[in-house]
């Protein structure tokens, strides 16, 4: 069984938000509902101030607090290590949103978080879907939280379950440079123009993700909380992983 994980090299990340856009297009997200986001923040005080950025998908934690708190097992850990939401079970209590330390979850039914027209009104749905975007993804799998979601449930990054789950068993790395694996690779990894993202099997000692974590000293976000993310960051000389979540955002 694979244990899919992601490595993000902060030395290579230029904060271009291509991953955010690719994720939104791939997964038919509403504007503002960024399953993957690049968070910009400011460190220090004028004149010693620095603008930093930090890409943040769902961490698909090894020990996910969102799974533990969900009263109905709608949020669950899948066989290959992804943390998913079963949209047929979710009761919309939002406890998982409270318990996720990384703020990666979204409730379908809320005010438009973005300026501009309310997309749910512009592209109204006639059925159980919460909206009907013109750029819908072809896949739909509510048990795994894939597709345009129904009303009143919680959604989050699936590690592109609809792509990754089709990879041949035993694949160590999903590398967008390799034509054999490109179509199974998560959209954010495929699109990253600097190649800052790696995706592979953390349980396979030969995988590229494991090598990167070992050679470049991969670290995890807010590790002290015990969620044990399956997303690792490489900080090198240039980047850093924020130690707090209350940084002044810009």
């Amino acid at each position, binding site marked *: 069984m694979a244990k899919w994980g992601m490595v993000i090299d902060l030395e290579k990340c230029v904060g271009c938000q291509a991953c955010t856009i690719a994720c939104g297009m791939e997964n038919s997200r509403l504007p503002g509902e960024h399953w993957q986001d690049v968070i910009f923040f400011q460190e220090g005080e004028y004149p010693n101030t620095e603008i930093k950025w930090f890409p943040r998908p769902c961490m698909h934690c090894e020990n996910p607090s969102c799974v533990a708190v969900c009263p109905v097992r709608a949020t669950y850990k899948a066989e290959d290590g992804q943390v998913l939401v079963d949209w047929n079970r979710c009761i919309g209590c939002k406890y998982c949103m409270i318990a996720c330390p990384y703020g990666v979850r979204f409730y379908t039914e*809320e005010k438009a978080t973005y300026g501009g027209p309310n997309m749910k009104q512009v592209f109204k749905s006639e059925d159980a879907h919460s909206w009907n975007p013109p750029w819908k993804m072809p896949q739909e799998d509510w048990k795994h939280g894939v597709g345009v979601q129904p009303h009143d449930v919680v959604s989050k990054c699936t590690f592109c379950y609809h792509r990754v789950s089709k990879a041949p068993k035993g694949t160590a790395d999903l590398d967008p440079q390799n034509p054999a694996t490109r179509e199974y690779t998560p959209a954010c990894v495929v699109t990253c123009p600097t190649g800052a993202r790696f995706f592979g099997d953390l349980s396979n000692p030969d995988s590229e993700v494991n090598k990167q974590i070992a050679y470049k000293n991969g670290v995890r976000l807010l590790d002290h909380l015990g969620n044990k993310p399956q997303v690792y960051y490489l900080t090198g000389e240039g980047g850093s992983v924020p*130690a707090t979540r209350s940084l002044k955002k810009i």
Partner: protein
Amino acid sequence: MATKSTEISSHVRSAANAWLVSCIIVGGISGAYMLYQLMTVGHAAFNTSSDGVNWGLPIATYVFFALTSSGLSMIASLAMVFGFKQFYPIVKRCIWLAIITLASGFAVLAFELGHPFRMLWAMPTGMQVVSPMFWMGVFYTIDLVLLIIKFYLIMQDDWHSNLSKFIGAASFVAVILASGMLGLLFGSVAMRPMWFGSFTSIYYMLTAALCGAAAIVVTTYMAFDFDSRNMPDELRTLAESDQLPKVFATLIGITLVMIVTRMWTGLWSNLDGLEGFHILIKSPLFWIEFLLGLVIPFWMLLQPSMQVRMRPQMIAAFLVLGGMFINRYEFIVSGQIVPMFKGTWVNSLEPYFPSTTEWAMAVFGLAVALGGYAIGEKLFHLSATPNNGTAGKLATSAA
């Protein structure tokens, strides 16, 4: 005796009628508005958001009612479980109110949830035993069932049988577990340091008792048109003694100590996420809750001259209920105002103010509770005691 009891019940019924009519009007309007909003706009009519405050006023209202219900059960247990016989005259009213407040809490929660009906099958089939919310559901359901059985037994004038004693004790245990689980729901999440820790469960259990005490003082007087002369003798003896005010004052004192210790720990520590305490101490709402809702009632109930008088007891109880409602709200909201990692467009601190729909839900909950209480006064002779079972039955059949 029979004439007096008829007089009493006519007083009770006229007061209850007025309450019921106002509650139906207020509850009808707020409920209709809320339903209209939920059907046309959906949960987007709430001001909660994925970026910050996920749980707002409706959850605070639910917690307020659920804990008040637990507290009322605890107060009923003083007589039913711990043998303080002087509290018998309020037992029946406490139990009825506990049922009604729990029902109001559940009603508000149901409208807050995305899919309330789905919960009915998804909870038992999921059996997610590591979720505090799962256990909260289990224990509050057990609590509700036991309360209904307890009320039925009292209606049958069965106060002392072994079954009645057993149900009383089981209900006390259920209520401690239920309020404790509601506390654990917040206290278990390490990523929310303003809530985290076993303190939250203890805080919820003890402040539940305080809300229960305040609720029973308010409603007992309310039932008799705010005039103790209308009360049956046994109840008047209790109302004019310093027994209940002393229990009440002790509970306010304990709550004050807990709030102060929680505040100073929070203000002193600089753990990421505890900034909420600094916001709290600057907020007028907190000071209204603290000074008006707790310190002043505490002082009032410590004055021997005020303890035994109706008006100060009433005022203190009203202030405490208002203060504790604010307390539930600020507890829940302040734990969320420091956002988790979320997007470029999120503020350092999340602003939140309940929407009209959320306010309508709170008003609706209150109307359900007070209306249900009035129905109880009309139909069930809530002042019955083991010594006037026949009077109780007479009044019931007269109603």
